């Protein structure tokens, strides 16, 4: 394997601020390995090839992904709630990536917030189905999928059509030789590359793959979630859940957030919280707001308890190595696929236009990761405040009252609705949600609703 050095082409590719390259750059014939064919790996490969073509750079990209995403149940799944946010749907459409109807199980146009004091529907600002509910894999165990298509398979094929080679083998390790990364196959064969992109999520033992690498990273902090699928006839699901995602703000110990997502003749339940166990899931399913939707009595056909990243890896890059998506940095609780898209594109941009040295990734890739990380800190504050509000009946009443009033009005500012919409959909950065929450007009109206909520709460207790 040859050592890649600076060339005339490299000088052409590094025209922007901060300019000079570290000397490690891709040149014609460069070989790139991507381990993991989920959204992060597929987006990374797709953008690498697209950007390389735009500057007439010939590169080869191999994606190591043993799964075909054609099997139902865990064997063909990436264990995720399966929501593509409103923002990502729009951005992908702008990029020319159109999600076909057989990938989208249901377009979502609204959220229904359920609390013990009542529920309220928050419609999409454009009254349009702009959130995609889909399956990352090929549907739950024993599903009759017909012509449905897995989201991950769709993205992998998109990368493949751009020219990526999908290697249906498990990468069992990585190594280094003469400063170049190598991918180890189960039969012991070592294949050399100029750049290695790791997009392995947090549910694999990816850090073991990094033994012996020059990467000085920390494992992302994770928490366990619970995801399951209910099966029922599509008409009943449509009648009960409609085109809405149903989210639950319930004062249950250890429960952070839960949602029911309609997907044709299945409904996905996602539960986030601390130490999620059967007791917590049963308490949730037995709570009156959930029972009213009859989810508890519906047969569960598939469930899993995947880990999610709640604090990003430190320094997710090294010379010729970059961590993308969940195994690097992702958004707190929301829009993980959106974060995979952002980090994948930033990593591809760095590799094609700036270089593949640690310093290149530090200067041009790390700002994207740091921005997501900084926004997550604000997210933690917002979820902390939400937890405080959901513990008090009068504040739950205030949220319900203010949102309901806003939704009944045809015009005018919908400040609480906007905050809840952005919080639940992951459509806006947490810093924007905080700015909305700190607006004097919002604070004034919310205080007024809180005062009313205290009065009503006392009246009902009396």
């Amino acid at each position: 394997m040859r050592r890649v050095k600076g060339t005339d082409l490299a000088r052409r590719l590094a025209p922007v601020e901060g300019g000079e390259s570290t000397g490690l750059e891709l040149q014609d014939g460069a070989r790139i390995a991507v381990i993991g064919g989920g959204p992060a790996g597929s987006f990374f490969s797709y953008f690498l090839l697209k950007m390389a073509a735009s500057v007439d750079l010939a590169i080869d990209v191999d994606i190591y992904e043993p799964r075909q995403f054609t099997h139902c149940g865990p064997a063909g799944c990436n264990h995720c709630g399966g929501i593509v946010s409103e923002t990502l749907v729009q951005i992908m459409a702008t990029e020319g990536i159109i999600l076909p109807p057989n990938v989208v199980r249901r377009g979502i146009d609204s959220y229904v917030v359920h609390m013990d004091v009542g529920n309220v529907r928050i419609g999409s600002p454009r009254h349009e189905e702009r959130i995609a509910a889909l399956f990352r894999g090929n549907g739950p165990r024993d599903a009759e999928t017909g012509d449905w298509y897995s989201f991950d398979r769709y993205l992998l094929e998109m990368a493949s059509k751009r020219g990526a080679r999908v290697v249906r083998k498990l990468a069992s390790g990585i190594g280094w030789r003469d400063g170049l990364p190598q991918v180890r196959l189960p039969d012991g064969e070592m294949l050399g590359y100029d750049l290695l992109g790791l997009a392995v999520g947090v549910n694999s033992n990816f850090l073991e793959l990094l033994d012996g690498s020059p990467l000085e990273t920390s494992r992302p902090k994770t928490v366990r979630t619970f995801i399951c699928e209910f099966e029922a006839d599509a008409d009943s699901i449509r009648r009960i859940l409609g085109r809405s995602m149903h989210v639950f703000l319930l004062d249950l110990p250890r429960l952070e957030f839960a949602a029911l997502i309609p997907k044709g003749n299945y409904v996905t339940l996602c539960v986030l919280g601390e130490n999620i166990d059967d007791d917590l899931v049963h308490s949730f399913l037995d709570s009156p707001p959930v029972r009213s939707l009859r989810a508890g009595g519906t047969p569960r056909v598939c469930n899993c308890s995947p880990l999610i990243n709640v604090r990003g890896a430190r320094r997710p890059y090294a010379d010729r190595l970059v961590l993308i998506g969940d195994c690097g940095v992702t958004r707190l609780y929301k829009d993980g696929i959106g974060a995979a898209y952002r980090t994948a594109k930033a990593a591809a941009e760095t590799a094609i236009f700036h270089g593949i040295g640690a310093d290149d990734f530090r200067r041009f890739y790390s700002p994207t990761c740091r921005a997501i990380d900084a926004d997550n800190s604000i997210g933690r504050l917002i979820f902390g405040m939400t937890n405080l509000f959901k513990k008090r009946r009068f504040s739950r009443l205030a949220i319900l009252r203010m949102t309901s009033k806003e939704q009944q009005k045809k015009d005018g500012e919908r400040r609480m609705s906007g905050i809840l919409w952005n919080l639940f959909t992951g459509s806006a950065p947490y810093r924007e949600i905080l700015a909305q929450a700190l607006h004097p007009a919002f604070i004034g109206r919310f205080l007024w609703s809180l005062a009313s909520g205290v009065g009503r709460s006392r009246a009902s207790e009396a």
Partner: protein
Amino acid sequence: MGLRRRSPLGKIYADGEIIVQQDELGDCMYVVQSGEVEVLAEANGSEVMLAVLGAGDFFGEMAIFERQERSATVRARSDARVLTVDKKTLLRRIQEDPLLAVHILEAMSHRIRELNGELTRLKTPRGKD
């Protein structure tokens, strides 16, 4: 019916339904998800069809980059599924990721090329065809 039954993304516009009205102010662009739409310019009381757009094509992008009225009317031909892209969302993401604008620039460049061809044909004296 297939489009409606599967409840995909965007909004369905019926045959002949106006999506964008010429001379109105806009704060979004649109991406055709399926079906076709026609772009019409109205001048001196008559309509001139400028283009027919299909899946993956976008329109209304000028409203994203300049505060001007819509330059043409766009209406659905048969059932068309169209997704709205908010100006604020797009500009915020372009600020973070300028390469996002490249796809739009490519399409606009293609349209300018087509317009140049059209203009050349119109300005070329007939005898020289």
